């Protein structure tokens, strides 16, 4: 059976850019996609005319083709939530190696805050969620993504104080990032004193809600050095989907699919945990990176929350996590995964300014599909 490791270091990210972020009521969702695409192409010294592959989520490849007025010969509309873009990177690598396209563009744009030009959201009343979840008053991720946390607290003894510390550690990184929306230091007490949203979540356990976009340009190894910026290589990837509705998450105490995608990414890259000292762990809420850290195997099950509380992931810690300030303090448009990848790229390019990790060669990015519904893992490197 063919092994994914033959795709290791065969494809590189050579263009990467974000739009302005924050509150952008003057821009539609599709406009943010296009703006990010054009910025990422410019970063690579390219234009739309060079693109022959498109992957996107939140809208469709057809919408992007129309808006950019191009006709790609490879498309991927995998849309399984905030981590879709990580999957797109893995798919693009296979497509480029297969010869399906030469220059793949992955776009994200979302008017998550201002809701300009956004498609309608929820599944209808005859869907599984419409029948078996919506009648009970869930109102989106803060009330649903949070459902498993109480079981984790019961099973492992993890505490509200420890989950609060995730926000504190992440904010410390944001103080070093001039583009972060929230930059004032906070304490565990500040988090615990913020208003209740859906216990055990309080306001500061929750990510920001913003507008913005980001995009990536990928090409093959043969062309990877022909661009203005040094290549950032795809070394490993893994992806999985499981349930759609949080009710049907088999084990509420662990992120089961993440165990597979982490192991797959490590196997493809030929690397192990000890090689990784920069992690981007999608943090829609403070418990989400805790589940990820445990499932990816950086700590034992149940040790994730204490690990964050001991500030090992904060500036100066042994395992920097979410160095841009994360969804909690940097930005969160709704499908944050693009920004997690972007920070891995920024760090590997050595462009992270005051928060730059010295001599960094590898970065792991992890994001959910939906609400613990699945997961995707990337390992990127610059050598």
């Amino acid at each position, binding site marked *: 059976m063919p092994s994914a490791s033959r795709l290791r270091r065969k494809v590189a990210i050579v263009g990467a850019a974000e739009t302005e972020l924050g509150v952008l009521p003057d821009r539609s969702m599709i406009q943010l996609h296009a703006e990010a695409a054009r910025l990422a192409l410019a970063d690579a010294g390219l234009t739309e005319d060079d693109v022959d592959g498109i992957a996107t989520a939140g809208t469709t490849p057809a919408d992007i083709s129309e808006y950019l007025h191009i006709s790609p010969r490879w498309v991927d509309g995998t849309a399984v939530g905030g981590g879709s873009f990580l999957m797109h990177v893995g798919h693009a690598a296979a497509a480029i190696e297969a010869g399906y396209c030469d220059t793949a563009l992955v776009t994200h744009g979302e008017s998550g805050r201002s809701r300009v030009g956004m498609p309608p959201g929820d599944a*209808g*009343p*005859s869907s*599984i969620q*419409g*029948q*078996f*979840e*919506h*009648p*009970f*008053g*869930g*109102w989106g991720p*803060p*009330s*649903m993504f*949070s*459902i*498993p*946390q*109480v*079981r984790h607290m*019961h099973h492992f003894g993890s505490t509200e104080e420890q989950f609060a510390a995730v926000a504190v550690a992440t904010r410390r990184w944001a103080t070093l990032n001039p583009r972060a929306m929230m930059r004032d230091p906070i304490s565990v007490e500040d988090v615990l004193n913020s*208003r*209740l*949203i*859906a*216990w*055990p*979540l309080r306001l500061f356990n929750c990510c920001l809600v913003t507008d913005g976009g980001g995009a990536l340009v990928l090409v093959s190894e043969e062309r990877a050095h022909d661009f203005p910026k040094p290549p950032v290589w795809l070394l490993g990837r893994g992806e999985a989907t499981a349930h759609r*509705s*949080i*009710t*049907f998450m088999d084990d*509420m105490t662990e992120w089961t699919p993440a165990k597979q995608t982490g192991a797959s990414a490590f196997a493809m890259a030929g690397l192990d945990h000890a090689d990784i000292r920069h992690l981007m762990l999608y943090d829609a809420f403070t418990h989400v990176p805790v589940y990820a850290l445990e499932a990816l195997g950086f700590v034992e099950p149940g040790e994730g929350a204490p690990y964050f509380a001991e500030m090992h992931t904060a500036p100066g810690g042994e395992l920097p996590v979410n160095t841009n300030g994360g969804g909690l303090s940097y930005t969160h448009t709704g499908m944050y995964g693009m920004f997690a990848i972007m920070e891995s790229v920024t760090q590997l390019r050595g462009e992270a300014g005051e928060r730059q990790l010295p001599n960094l060669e590898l970065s792991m990015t992890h994001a959910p599909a939906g609400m613990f519904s699945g997961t995707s893992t990337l390992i990127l490197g610059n050598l």
Partner: protein
Amino acid sequence: MAYDKPLPEPTPETQEFWDGLKRHELRIQRCLDCDRFYFFPRPFCPHAGCRSGNVQWETVSGRAKLHTYVISHRGFGGFADDAPYVIAVVELDEGPRMMTNLVEVEPTPEALPVDMPLEIVYDDVTDEVTLAKFRPARG
């Protein structure tokens, strides 16, 4: 006042579940080959290693344990006046889990220990739809 919260729209494979609730019976499916119950309704056993199509509807006890929950301090639409309210996932004594609201209990962590025993309450929210809700077990 008319009921103003989201209502389910049954599909062919779920109709028996909703018809059962309307009769105040909790009806779920059991696999006749591996002898396990499952939920949500579908015409085959979802358990790994089984996957049988030999399944049947049965009426179950309505007893459950509190598996996990949130206490929502915000509500939208018809739920605006309900906050704080409990959105829970309960584990039926027969095994499967389902989402519900907990009723007849204080919406505080102190009143809601994980694994507390629960029993079903049939909430006839409209003439057509009955929802399965749960309260602390009484006996």
